[in-house]
């Protein structure tokens, strides 16, 4: 094989390796793209800072709350009110009811989604249970709060927004912690 062929081989091999890693690079690129453009209804999982409620009167908006349980998540999970009528530019508080129906300590994590997706950028959440994991003892129940505002720049065409939360079982991820806590609880009693 002559030198030219060796060089060709070398750059082709590099291209193959490069493209393999590029396919993995698509993952963060895709997320960055979605975040910048606000596509896909993705919301940041951290509270936005307090926005001064705007003095001008906003317009009426219907907000629907939806809940899903992922796969075999055994908890009861549902919104306290399925629909609230709000005005843009003002904070409102809503709650979700959650109950651990098992006889084990479990940890859940809710993932939010907004439809239509172009409303996501106009949603400000002061607090949300989706920012943290929920740890529930056997049979424990709770009302999880979310405090939200839709700003006045919400596109005119949107009169109805759906906020969807899917609750996932993430107990496995926190298993060690739970075992320790249970242990310490037992020793206390």
């Amino acid at each position: 094989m002559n030198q030219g062929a060796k060089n060709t081989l070398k750059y082709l091999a590099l291209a193959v390796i490069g493209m393999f890693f590029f396919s993995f690079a698509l993952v963060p690129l895709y997320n960055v793209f979605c975040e910048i453009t606000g596509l896909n209804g993705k919301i940041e999982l951290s509270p936005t800072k307090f926005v001064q409620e705007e003095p001008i009167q906003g317009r009426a908006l219907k907000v629907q709350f939806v809940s899903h349980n992922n796969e075999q998540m055994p908890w009861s999970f549902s919104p306290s009110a399925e629909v609230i009528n709000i005005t843009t530019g003002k904070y409102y508080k809503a709650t979700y009811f959650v109950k651990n129906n098992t006889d084990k300590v479990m940890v859940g994590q809710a993932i939010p989604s907004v439809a239509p997706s172009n409303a996501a950028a106009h949603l400000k959440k002061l607090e949300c249970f989706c920012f943290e994991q929920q740890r529930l003892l056997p049979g424990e129940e709770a009302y999880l709060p979310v405090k939200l505002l839709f700003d006045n720049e919400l596109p005119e065409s949107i009169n109805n927004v759906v906020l969807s939360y899917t609750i996932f079982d993430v107990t496995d991820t926190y298993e060690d912690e739970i075992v320790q806590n249970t242990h310490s609880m037992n020793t206390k009693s």
Partner: protein
Amino acid sequence: MSAVVESHDHHHGPAKGISRWLFTTNHKDIGTLYLWFSFAMFLIGGAMAMVIRAELFQPGMQIVEPEFYNQMLTLHGLIMVFGAVMPAFVGLANWLVPMMVGAPDMALPRMNNLSFWILPFAFGVMLSSLFMEGGAPNFGWTFYAPLSTTYAPPSVTFFIFSVHILGASSIMGAINVIVTIMNMRAPGMTLMKMPLFVWSWLITAYLLIAVMPVLAGAVTMMLMDIHFGTSFFNAAGGGDPVLFQHIFWFFGHPEVYIMILPAFGIASHIISTFSRKKLFGYTSMVWAMVSIAILSFVVWAHHMFTVGMPLAAELFFMWATMLIAVPTGVKVFNWVATMFRGSITYETPMLFAICFVVLFTIGGFSGLMLAITPADFQYHDTYFVVAHFHYVLVPGSVFSIMAAVYYWLPKWCGNMYDERLGRLHFWLSFIGVNVTFFPQHFIGLAGMPRRIPDYALQFADWNMISTAGAFLFGASQILFLFIVVKTVMGGKKATPEVWEGAQGLEWTVDSPPPYHTFSTPPLVK
């Protein structure tokens, strides 16, 4: 002493027995292996298509369980794409590229051997999943997550492994083709003097290098999601199932051009020979292929218009997709212009090539209909899509491969095929393919969804006709097998030129060519 002298004789022929095929580094042997392998896969994948069409002969569940139907559907797609069409083109490249550029062999002969011999293992693994608990992959050849991750049968891991192997095989094949073309052309053969089949394969090989690693990446992510607790495509861990579709189609769209570009090259050779005219617009043919290849990277999301993309993206992908019609139109125009006022004869390869141009164009037009975003919301996931891609793949890619086999088979084995049987095979295939797939346009527009083993009563008549056509098409491929075997076994001896006025270095060597050709490079003026 004489024994020593004999062992130094460098005009040796092929080794004897099975080891000739196992250890061969000869491009002609490997080309033959690829072609036979792809033929076997074509028949296996075809048998699966017969199961699918038999089930769809009448509404209601007749023959197989829905679970098995899904497995047939998935394996049919995977085997035809990765097992039949792609290896057939690699086989043609192995046989023809060195002879067309005046090289003694492929640049990397041992890698060539490896890239073929891992293929039977890849498909052995894939097919063995049929006998595993939970059955073979059942999520369609596009294996969308989470259907192929969270909800997949356990055999999905074997599927992933098999895709890794066949991907490695394709990448090695592509590297070999590029290194050969870039470094081993005969003196005087500049890039713009290369035969179009060589050009088409050079571009195809670059596409393969660019996207097969992305496919490997996609299945690796699936593997990690399934076994190592990552969440690339799992919303539970912050991943996104739509991401899978983006990555898959970033690979998938160039992939469909990988399956058609070599066909463009083949058609150019055959149409020029049997029109007894120089190909019209050589330079524009090359640039059209380059443009198609580049555009193939910016149109992927037209496969996912209904996934919920913003308007701007839908418009971009619609226009970019339609742009591809321009270079494709240039090619069709050139083929027609080549035939215009030519003294055409209609031997079997020419029949297949003309049929390729006409039916591929029909498939291209239905592609344009699908590219219209608002219309696609109606067509998406209906039989209209099935009709579209079968028109570009069966009378497109597969007919071009058959044309190539009839055209170059006399060169490869030194015997002429039976012209009457060849034409009979063509007409049976032509009628079969149209009876099978044309009605699928109608039932698709009427709303019959794809990938479902049962259908509403109003689709019954066209489905029955479609199934009849499919069995005609399937049976006529047995005739093809018979013709090929008969030709290889014997027949009228072919001249070195084979076809009157055929152009190219491969026609300057004997038929069949000696085991080693162009050990001293020919001079190209």
